Each structure stands twice: as structure tokens, then as C-alpha cells.
């Protein structure tokens, strides 16, 4: 009789345990449905660029936006309030880290002055440098074109058009950016090698606005060509020569809509443009891979092209210079 009772109790316990397991299983099933939406972790990434002109970064942003749609990224794209202020950019960098960003892509406004701030940031979050492939911080991942090569190839293209013995002015601004200083260095070296005279036009504090300064410089100095090594300065050169017509040839590096338009119009003779779409997309890809798989950050070289008015509309150039926007 006692044995029967024990047997019955055991049976009840087994049934209860089975029901409990069933309930847990159903809960797990329910949970899995809930988790289905949440299971992919999202990464908060900040992109800090120099300059106040957001349009200048349109191509980069297109690439970043494509990456945002391909990868689980919550993006914070930050431009500066003032041009070329290293302190301001340093503060932005700190603010982003404090606000909990998980990775940073930064186009540094002043390579040397930002070096320490970037080193500090790297200890907290992965950092990749945009536009820069120089030696600054050997251990820092960089994504950008070979700036020395850009300068070299631009010089060679100019040489073909100008021949030798020309006087060429380089807008010697923003040299604190390693990318521009590298471009300038190689450009000047090759142009000099070709037998050209190179002059530097540097606007001093208290001078006129950049475009007026350039206009005055063109009027006061007899030069055959003017070269600007970034979008900002190239646009200033365009503004300087636009209204009154010009006799100097203009060369430059950049790819804003305005620059491309003036290349199309013939104001700019030859243009070097970097595939910033790729730079934006790949920088995000590298950071996400690092965050997701803990893989090491790596350097990535970005391609660039030389374009003039004649080949602006060839298939490859128009695809890169005219983003498809609805």
C-alpha cells in the first residue's frame, strides 16, 4: 500500500516536471520570437571631419550611408563649427568618446596637433584616419589615397600641358594637414624637376578673404598656372577667377559639385579626384569588422583619378563624379 502511494507521488512529480519543462520551452519559443528582432547588435560610430562645409563631404557621406544600410551602424556625422581648428576637433573627439561612441573615423584638421588626441582616443575605441596615409602614428589605421602619388601625377599632367619654364603658384594653405603637405611636396618636386618655377601663395593673418587674396595674387604676379591642393582652396581659386575671366590655367584636387561644374565649363583645366565614396564605405566596413569580430584594423589605400574637360563624361568618371541621387 505504502509502495503504491510512493509510486503515485513519483508519477505526479514526473508529470509536474514535464509540464514545467514544457512551460519553459514555450517561454523560450516566445522569447526567441521576441529576440529575433533584437539579436543583431548595432554599433555606434562617429565620423568627425574638418571644415564647416558639409557639401564637401557629399561623396564620402554617400559611401558611409551605403555602409549604414549594409551594416548595423548608428552613425553620428560631425562637422566643425569653425574651419581648421585643431582644438575644436580635439574637443569633438573627446565629446564623442564620452558620449559612448564605439568607433571613430576622423579626417584630421591638423595632423601633428591632433596626434596626441588621436593616440588617447585609440586607447578607448578603435580609430581610423580618413584621407591620410602618411606616417603619422605608425600604429594608427589609415584610409585614403597615396597623397604623394597624387601630387606626382598632377605635376606630370600639368607638365604635359604647360611644358617647361612655366611659373606655377601653389595655394600654400592648410599645410598642417599631412595629406596636403604630402601632395604639395611631391607636386613641387616634379614640377621643379621639369624645369618650372614654383611659388607659394600663403595668405597671412589679416589678409583679404581667400578668393580676393588669390585674385590679387593673380593680378600682381605673372604666373602661368595656379594649383589648389584641396576642395576648399580650389573653390576659392574658382571664385577668384570666375567673374572677370582669367588667363591662368587652374589645376586642383577635389570633387565638389562646384568644382566638377567648373571643370565642365572649362574654368578648371585638370582635376584630380579621390574616390571618397569608397573611402566612406570601406572605413565603416573596417570599423564594423573590428567591432564585430575583433579583427585588427588595417590600412586601406583609395584610388584616385585625373580628369579633364574632355573625359569628364566618360563612363567611369561620370559614375564617380556625379552621384546618383533621387
Amino acid at each position, binding site marked *: 500500500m505504502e*509502495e*503504491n502511494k510512493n*509510486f503515485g507521488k513519483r*508519477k505526479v512529480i*514526473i*508529470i509536474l516536471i*514535464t*509540464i514545467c*519543462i*514544457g512551460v519553459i*520551452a*514555450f517561454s*523560450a*519559443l516566445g522569447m*526567441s520570437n521576441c529576440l*529575433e528582432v533584437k539579436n543583431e547588435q548595432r554599433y555606434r560610430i562617429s565620423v568627425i571631419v574638418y571644415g564647416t562645409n558639409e557639401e564637401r563631404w557629399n561623396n564620402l557621406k*554617400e*559611401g558611409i550611408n*551605403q555602409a549604414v544600410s549594409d551594416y548595423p551602424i548608428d552613425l553620428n556625422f560631425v562637422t566643425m563649427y569653425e574651419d581648421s581648428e585643431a582644438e575644436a576637433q580635439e574637443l569633438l573627439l573627446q565629446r564623442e568618446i564620452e558620449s559612448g561612441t564605439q568607433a571613430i573615423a576622423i579626417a584630421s584638421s591638423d595632423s601633428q596637433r591632433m596626434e596626441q588626441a588621436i593616440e588617447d582616443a585609440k586607447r578607448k575605441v578603435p580609430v581610423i584616419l580618413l584621407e591620410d596615409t602618411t606616417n603619422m602614428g605608425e600604429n594608427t589605421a589609415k584610409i585614403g589615397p597615396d597623397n604623394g602619388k597624387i601630387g606626382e601625377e598632377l605635376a606630370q599632367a600639368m607638365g604635359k600641358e604647360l611644358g617647361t619654364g612655366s611659373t606655377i603658384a601653389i595655394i600654400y594653405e592648410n599645410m598642417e594637414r599631412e595629406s596636403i603637405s604630402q601632395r604639395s611636396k611631391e607636386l613641387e618636386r616634379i614640377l621643379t624637376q621639369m624645369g618650372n618655377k614654383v611659388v607659394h601663395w600663403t595668405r597671412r593673418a589679416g589678409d583679404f578673404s581667400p578668393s580676393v587674396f588669390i585674385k590679387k595674387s593673380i593680378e600682381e604676379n605673372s604666373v602661368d598656372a595656379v594649383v589648389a591642393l584641396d576642395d576648399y582652396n580650389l573653390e576659392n581659386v574658382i571664385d577668384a577667377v570666375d567673374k572677370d575671366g582669367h588667363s591662368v590655367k587652374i589645376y586642383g584636387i577635389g570633387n565638389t*559639385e*562646384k568644382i*566638377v*561644374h567648373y571643370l*565642365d*565649363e*572649362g574654368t578648371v583645366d585638370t582635376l584630380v579626384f579621390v*574616390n571618397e*565614396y*569608397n573611402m566612406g*564605405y*570601406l572605413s565603416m566596413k573596417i570599423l564594423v569588422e573590428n567591432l564585430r569580430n575583433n579583427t585588427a584594423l588595417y590600412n586601406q589605400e583609395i584610388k584616385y583619378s585625373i580628369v579633364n574637360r574632355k573625359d569628364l*563624361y566618360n*563612363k*567611369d568618371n*561620370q*559614375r*564617380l563624379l*556625379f*552621384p*546618383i541621387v*533621387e
Partner: protein
Amino acid sequence: MKQRIKNYLIHFIKSYQKKSIQFNISISFSIIAAICMGFISIALYTRYVDSTESIIIEDNKKLINQASMNMETYIRSMMRISDTMYYSVIKNADLSQENLNRDMNLIYEANKDNVISIVCFTEQGDLAGATPVSTLKEDLNVKNQEWFVSANTTIENLHFSTPHVQNLFKDSNYRYYWVVSLSRAVELTSAGKTSRGVLLVDMDYSSIQQLFEKINSTGVGYTYLINRNGEIIYHPRQELIYSNLYQENNLKAAKYEDGNYVEKFHNQDREVIVKTVGYTGWKIVNVTLTSEFSMNYEQMRYFVIMIAAISFLLLICVNLVISSIIANPIMQLERSVKGLENGNLDLDIYIGGSYEIQHLGRTISYAVAQMRKLMDDMVKEQEAKRKNELDALQSQINPHFLYNTLDSIVWMVESGRYEEAVSMVTSLASLFRISISKGKNIISIQDEVAHAKYYLDIQKVRYKNKFSVEFQIEEEIYQFSTIKLIIQPILENAIYYAMESMDGEGEICIKGYRMKDDIYIDIIDNGLGMSKEQVELLLTNDRRVRKKGSGIGLINVHQRIQLYFGKNYGLLIESEPDEGTIVHIHLPQVCYDGGK
């Protein structure tokens, strides 16, 4: 190895056989349930996979059919614009006298959502008319542009270009338009002379882009558009393709006829559906990666596993209940049989459970009842046999007693003591008469007491009055029954063991009385008495060799009383060394009815 497997199998079967029936049923059912659940789950999952794949493919087919229809409608409307422009405006106009712009503008205004511009060029590349009115770029050479070349190559056809940036007009706002150019060769009339020209309708690329973005926002996989050479017109990752960050199998897709294809591209299996758009030869291509199917399956797989696991648990639960319903009665019956094995024949045999078990229980119960009856009969038979043996033994008279008695009688006759001899012979005759009692075993207490008196009379002569005898029998007990010859063996023991050495001082007292509805007859002597151990042996050890007496031990008397009247009755002996012995005969109060 074979032998090892065989050994394992044998070991498994043996251990399986050793387990309880409930365990075996539960395990067997559970294993079968698990196998069935496994098969069902696999079948369901496979069916789900097949049907999901075919549903997705069917959905995608519908989607690209719809896309194809939309594209054809769009293309037709563009062609209609071109046709209207050509047949209603250009053909009827003399360019030397009238400007095309006004009529062009009307058509443009009606379709400006989808059209960027409508332009007509002469064969030399000069502008014949354009809407919206704009300034042509300086140094523009349209004759090199692809749409112009195509129109002049096959003049009878309409030509659709791949997407490109419009390169015709100045725009001070730095605006550039991605367009798909629809061009055709036209006949221009100027001052009565006809010449060839090219009519260009630049379709807004964003209309195609929007159409495909809408398609790509639904369904599984993605859809892209290529021309007949495989050049991409629209792709959801177009910029990535242009930047060489993504590759598409578009050149191969251009060779596909309409239908479904399975292909492998960059180590990925893909399901491809191709549909050609009318008038243009463009192809809409839908691509679904096989891994995208399996992404949907992963959740289903988990779901099926969970359902199978839960069902399996529930089945285990049901199995336990069913197996206990089946096995419990068998186990209870088995417990009953175990009880029988332990010799407990009075146990109630379990009858319950299914019909078969009930039948088994009833049969065992019947068999046990039969066994119990047979055993009772056997016991009764044995008891009767024992009674007869004891009775037969009791009936025997010690030959020594008879010999001595007869010797005493001879001695009395020889010495002339005839009266005493007569008295002794009479006593002996009476003794035998009661001993025989016409073969009855049950006699009245009165006869039994008389038998004892006759016996004592003879013994007193033989022992020359070495002891005295006193009878204190309550007369009311004479009427009750007793089995015969129960006092005499006790007296015999008292005389042989107690009185022989007493030399005239021995006393034997026989008391008969009723107490608590029972009868007691006590034989009290003042002999040597016995130790407790000796007393205990008297009623337990029937193999004891008696040195004296008739050979009928007290134990025989005790057993006979118990055989006739039950275990509650019999002898009780009290004795103290040097004090004497009391033997209580305990009998039930049964009235004597003449031995019937």
C-alpha cells in the same frame, strides 16, 4: 567487433528484461515516439522548406512580372512622347518658318514628371528645338554622344541608352541629371527641303530608380535591370558596383532567356529569375541567395525542434500515465503473487486493471482458494490422523502395570486374601471398561474421575498404601465432557516419579472445579517436584525417553486435549523442587450427551 556488438546486444536485452514492465513500456513507447517525432519533424521541415522556396520564387516571379509591366508601361509612354513629338510636331513643321519649342513644351509639360528634356538636333548636331528652354553648352559636340550615334546607325529604330549624365545644357546651379536617353532619327523639313535629324527624349532616371526601389523594398532577394549587353541600368548597389566594391553576375544574366535559373556566383548559390522588358530588350533580373532562404528556415528549424521536443515531453508524460495504467495492475498482481510465495495464503489477490489482468487475478485467486482448501483439508486429515494415533497410544495399557497388577492378584489369592483380590479384579475390570468406553473418545468427567479412582485403587494395593489420595471434585462438573484417559497418565507420572520414594507420606489430591466457564481438574502431589527447565520440557519434548510408566507422556495428553478442544486448552504444570507438582487440566465446559 561483431562478437562485441553481439555481446552488447545480449547485455542490453538482458538488462532490458530485468527492468520493470512499466519501465519497458515507457522506454519502448518513448523511443518509438522519439523516432516518429523525428520523422514527422523532418518531413514537416522538408515540406516547409520546399513550399517556402516555391512560394518565394512564385512571389518573386509575380513581382518581376509586375515590374516588367510597369517598365513596359513607362517605356511605352516614353515612346508615345517620342512618336507624338515626331509625327504630330516635327513632321508637320517647317523649321525655316516655325519654332518647335512651343509644341515641344506642351508635350513636356504633360510628362515632366518622367522627362528631363526633349531636344531635337539637326544632322550636323545643331539645336533644332528644345524644352525646357536652356542654353546649350559651349563647344558641345553632340555628334559624338552615344544616343546620337545610335540614332544615326539604325535610323528606323528607337534607341534606349544606358543611364548617363546629361551633357547638353548649362546649369548655373551645378545641377546634373542622370537620364536614360530615347533617341531616334527624324526627318526635318526646312524651306521645303528635308534632312535628317535626331529627336532625343531624356527620361528621368530617378523614375526607373524609384520603380525598382519599390520592388526591392518587398519580397526576398533583390531585383536589378540590365540592357541586352548586360550593362547595368539599375542595381540596388549600383554605386558600390561602380566603385568596384561589389560584383554582379550581370554579363551572364544577359545571356539568360526568360525563366528560372540556379547559378553559383562568388561561391554563393543563387536562384535567378529573368524577365525581358518589351521594346527595349532590357532584362529584369531577380536574385535570391539560397542563404536567404535558409535564414528563414533557421527560425522554422528552431520552431520545429521546440515543437518536437515539447510534443516528445508530452508523449513521455502520456507514456508514463498509460504505462502505469497498464503496468500497475500487473505490478499489484505480482506483489500478491510475491505474498503467496512468502507463504501468505490469506492474502487478498489483486483483481483489477484490464480484462486480461482481471481474468489472471481471478484465476490466481481461485487457484489460491483451492490451494487453501486443499491445505485445510490436509491439515484436518493430519490432525485426525494424529488424533487417531494419540488415541491408539492412549488406549494402550502399560504391560508392566497389567503384569504387576495380575501378579499382585495372584499373590493375594495365594495368601488367601480373596476379598482384596476380588476388589482388585473388580477395579481392574472397571478400569478396562472405562478405558474401552465402547470405543468412544469423549466420556463424562464423572467416568474419567471414576477411571482415575479405579486406577489409584489398584496402585494403592500395589504400592502398599505408600501414599494417600484425596478427591475434591465439584459435583456440578460431572455432567461435562472430557476426552478419556487424561487423568490416569498424570496420576501414573505422579506415582512413578513422586510417590515411590515417599514411604507412606505421599499425598495425591485430585481437584475438579469450574472457573470462568471453564473446567479445571488439578492433580496435586507433594513429591520431589521439578525444576522450571524440566517443567518446560514436559510439554514440548515428545521424544523424551520415559523410563517408567505406561509410556504415554503428559505431552500426549496435552496434544489430545488441544486437538479436540483447541489451542486454548490443555495442560498447565506448576512445580517447585521439594514442594510438589500441580498439573492443571484445562477443559471447555461442554455438556456430556452420551458421547454423541
